[in-house]
């Protein structure tokens, strides 16, 4: 009879943050996991449909599997930091493929909404595997499944894109689960033996053969349990199959968690746990929503997102309406002219401020002040200024210049420049502030050297200072250009897209159709916006963050 003395168990080897992960914490966690595993089996959790628990349990399982297989990959490819997120994403994609559109069984309207939004709804059901299939039967079944899948793809000519993503996800997910199935018994066995060593059998010497033996046993249990679950007919009676399924699953669950615990310290468990919410937010809120947007842009969803597939008709309509082509035309002008103007003006102002002038603080505040206003306020104020009946035109006429004309805002071709003027007025201060920070970052020695060499000031700016400010310039450009790309509120406040449709911009089009009766059309437009920004941003991200890092 041995007593449990956790303190006497040697701490795990490894870097300091791993050693901090004390034995009581580890084993406490293991006990909790075991309890959870038991509860899973006892209440039949992952297998019965009990509302919200089911997806949660699946997700938890997916995360655990991801940690189990985390280590060999980390060793192979230690620098790929996002690998975990990738694994989880792929595993979830695989899960979604496997369960085929019936993962959630909520009742009530919110459930209906959620189920309708689920991008995998509408995939065909899987063919049940015959009990007497045998090995070749199994292969045939896999073929059938794939075939049905491909048939479905062909049937819905469009969904090829969506399905392509799912197929790739599915294949990768399948590979991942194969790797998991092979590596899992090893890690699980290792974990279990160490738990044993720490608790029941303190003097246990863990040998390689012992680990391999347990791993083989685990693998067998896995096959038996899964066999029972899928009805392979190994078992004489249903009761026996049921028992094998249940206890085999319990076994698997327990060792899964054991493996997770054992491997945890090596994968910096704390930070992983802490980043789970972030991973879920990234996956569901950003990646998931983007995916959902693309999927539903191929439907005729009106006021309510229902997956009623109509192919690329929304895109066809989008590219044939004048409002959208005007909007695209406007945004190009807006980005080119607006960004360039606020850049040049902002830089000149920054240079001016950099001349060690008096009252610099005052000027800086004045220039930066418009930026403190919201776009809505800016838009309304400039709407009054531009308005021929209240604004500039009327004032100057009252001063005596009676045939003065300034009605750009009601001119189809010129109204967009009014929007640009207002936006530049607002945005220049920020550019100035950022540029000024960049200019101040240039070492005085550079200036002294230039002066000694007799280089004129303007040449120093253009040939020395500006190249030195490259990082600031790029950051500023991205901030200003992306702000210009999604311009919305200033247009709404200033012209509301008028006169007619002449100052429409893409985000306004998206909003208008998304929220008043044509979700499909709004989503098609936002997909195009997403594509455009991806085309612009991805090369920049690559150059700035990937290529430059390699050079350094």
């Amino acid at each position, binding site marked *: 009879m041995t007593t449990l003395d956790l303190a006497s168990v040697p701490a795990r080897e490894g870097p300091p943050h791993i050693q901090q992960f004390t034995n009581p914490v580890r084993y406490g966690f293991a006990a909790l996991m075991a309890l959870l595993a038991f509860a899973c089996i006892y209440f039949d959790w992952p297998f019965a449909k009990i509302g919200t628990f089911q997806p949660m349990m699946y997700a938890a399982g997916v995360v655990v599997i991801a940690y189990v297989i985390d280590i060999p990959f980390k060793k192979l490819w230690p620098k790929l930091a996002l690998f975990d997120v990738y694994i989880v994403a792929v595993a979830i994609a695989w899960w979604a493929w496997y369960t085929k559109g019936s993962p959630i069984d909520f009742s009530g*309207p919110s459930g*209906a909404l959620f189920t309708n939004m689920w991008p995998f709804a509408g995939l065909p059901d899987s063919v049940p595997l015959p009990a007497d299939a045998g090995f070749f039967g199994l292969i045939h079944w896999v073929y059938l499944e794939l075939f049905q899948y491909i048939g479905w793809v062909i049937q819905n000519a469009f969904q090829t894109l969506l399905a392509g993503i799912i197929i790739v996800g599915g294949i990768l997910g399948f590979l991942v689960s194969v790797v998991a199935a092979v590596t899992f018994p090893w890690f699980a066995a290792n974990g279990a033996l160490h738990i044993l060593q720490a608790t029941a059998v303190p003097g246990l010497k863990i040998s390689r053969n012992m680990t391999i033996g347990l791993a083989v046993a685990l693998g067998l249990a896995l096959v038996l349990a899964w066999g029972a679950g899928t009805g392979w007919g190994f078992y004489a009676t249903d009761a026996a199959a049921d028992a094998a399924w249940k206890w085999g699953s319990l076994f698997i669950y327990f060792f899964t968690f054991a493996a997770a615990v054992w491997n945890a310290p090596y994968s910096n468990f704390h930070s992983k746990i802490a980043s789970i919410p972030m991973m879920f937010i990234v996956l569901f809120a950003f990646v998931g929503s983007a995916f959902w947007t693309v999927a539903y842009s191929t439907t005729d969803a009106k006021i309510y997102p229902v997956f009623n597939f109509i192919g690329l008709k929304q895109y066809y*309509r989008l590219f044939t309406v004048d409002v959208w082509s005007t909007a695209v035309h406007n945004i190009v002008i807006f980005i080119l002219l607006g960004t360039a103007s606020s850049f040049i003006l902002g830089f000149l102002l920054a240079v001016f401020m950099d001349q060690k002038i008096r009252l610099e603080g005052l000027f800086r505040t004045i220039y930066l002040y418009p930026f403190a206003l919201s776009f809505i306020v800016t838009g309304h104020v400039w709407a009054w200024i531009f308005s021929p009946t209240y604004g500039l035109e009327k004032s100057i006429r009252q001063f005596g210049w009676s045939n003065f004309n300034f009605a750009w805002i*009601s001119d*189809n071709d010129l109204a967009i420049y009014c929007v640009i003027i207002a936006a530049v007025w607002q945005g220049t201060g920020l550019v100035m502030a950022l540029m000024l920070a960049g200019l101040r970052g240039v070492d005085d020695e550079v200036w002294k050297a230039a002066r000694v060499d007799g280089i004129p000031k303007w040449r120093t700016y253009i040939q020395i200072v500006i190249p030195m400010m490259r990082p600031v310039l790029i950051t500023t450009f991205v901030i200003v250009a992306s702000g210009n790309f999604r311009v919305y509120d200033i247009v709404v406040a200033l012209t*509301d897209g008028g006169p*007619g449709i002449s100052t429409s911009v893409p985000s306004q089009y998206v909003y208008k159709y998304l*929220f008043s*009766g044509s979700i499909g059309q709004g989503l098609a437009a936002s997909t195009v916006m997403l594509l455009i920004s991806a085309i612009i941003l991805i090369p920049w991200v690559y150059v700035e963050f990937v290529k430059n890092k390699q050079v350094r």
Partner: protein
Amino acid sequence: MGLKKFAAGLAFTASLFAMGAAKATDIEVTHWWTSGGEAAAVAEFAKAVNASGDHWVDGAIAGSGDVARPIIISRILGGNPMGATQLNPGHDADELIKAGLMQDLTDVAKKENWDGILRPKTQLASCTVDGKVWCVPVNLHSAQWLWTNRHVYEKLGLQPPKDWNEFVADAPKLKAAGIQPMALAQGWPVGLLIQDLMVAVAGVDGFVKVYKDRDLGVAGGPDFAKVFKAVEDARSMVDPKDMTKQWNEAVALVITGKAGGVVHGDWSGGEFQVAKMVPGKDYDCLPGLGLTPVLNTGGDVFYFPKSKDPKITEAQLKMASTLVKPDVQVAFNLKKGSLPMRGDVDLSAANDCMKKGLEILDHPKSNAVFPNDVQMLDRDSLNQINDLMTQFFSTPAMTAADVQKKFVDIIKAAPPMK
């Protein structure tokens, strides 16, 4: 003894408080009635609901239906429903009803015999989906009105116009005198003007054939070609500089005599009412632009999003029946400038404009009362038509033939209505 009495009194008082607390349920009502006449009208509803023992919490959304509708719908979809909300009759809420997010009003409707007392039938019919009643129609609005300021014409020594054609003919003289011939607001009022011209020029038959029966031959035919020619006339009457941002600003230009007239719905009547102007003396109202006296059955309805709180459900059902009570209907519609939903009310206080409308409604000539656009075409297609029309109106380079071709395309692509 004394103590016992005291206790009984205490209990009684307590029960009174309890009853009071149970009865006064807050019911948040969203609507987009924010102009002078509209706000005065909606106050009548609030008064009636408060008098019935509940508490009206006003949720006015400034702007127009185009602004408010998305907010209302996304609040209901997002699981944060209001107690009641204004919408237009039609198919805006169909998908919400199908998703089970709306309160069923069938029992109230049956009990109070809405089917028998509310007219015309089209209004209740557009509240009825799958044989159940989901909304309560509160008023009838028609869009086909030409409003003119008599004083403007009289000052110039002109006879105030009796129809659209005279109105167009007088335009140059007003322009010469420095007065805007026609006031117009940006955005949806442009679409409304063009739709009014469709009805007035192509006739009710033509309009219904295109919008309801999707007759592409009529949409692309000579009658609609005339419509778009008339739009070109209208375009020449409005300087883009003078277009206002809101419809009530355009009406205000007519009220103050800065513009000769405006084509807009009967809700403009409320603004004239607030300005204390008298129809026939200070201003004229010409249904069907004076060409053909017609009335479409637009209007407003109230929907009650489903609530988990039984108290709110109870208050909703009570409010639904309050809104169609005769005295409430009269008080509301007099202020609003719209027509009441029931014929069995005393409207001796109604002004001449309302009486003109009631005359058409109660003694309709063939086809004079016809469905509203949202009852015939989905909101998405209407939005597209609206975009096209605002573009046409502000782009002199665009010809009537161009716009007609695009109009036919939209009608062709419109999904069928149940």
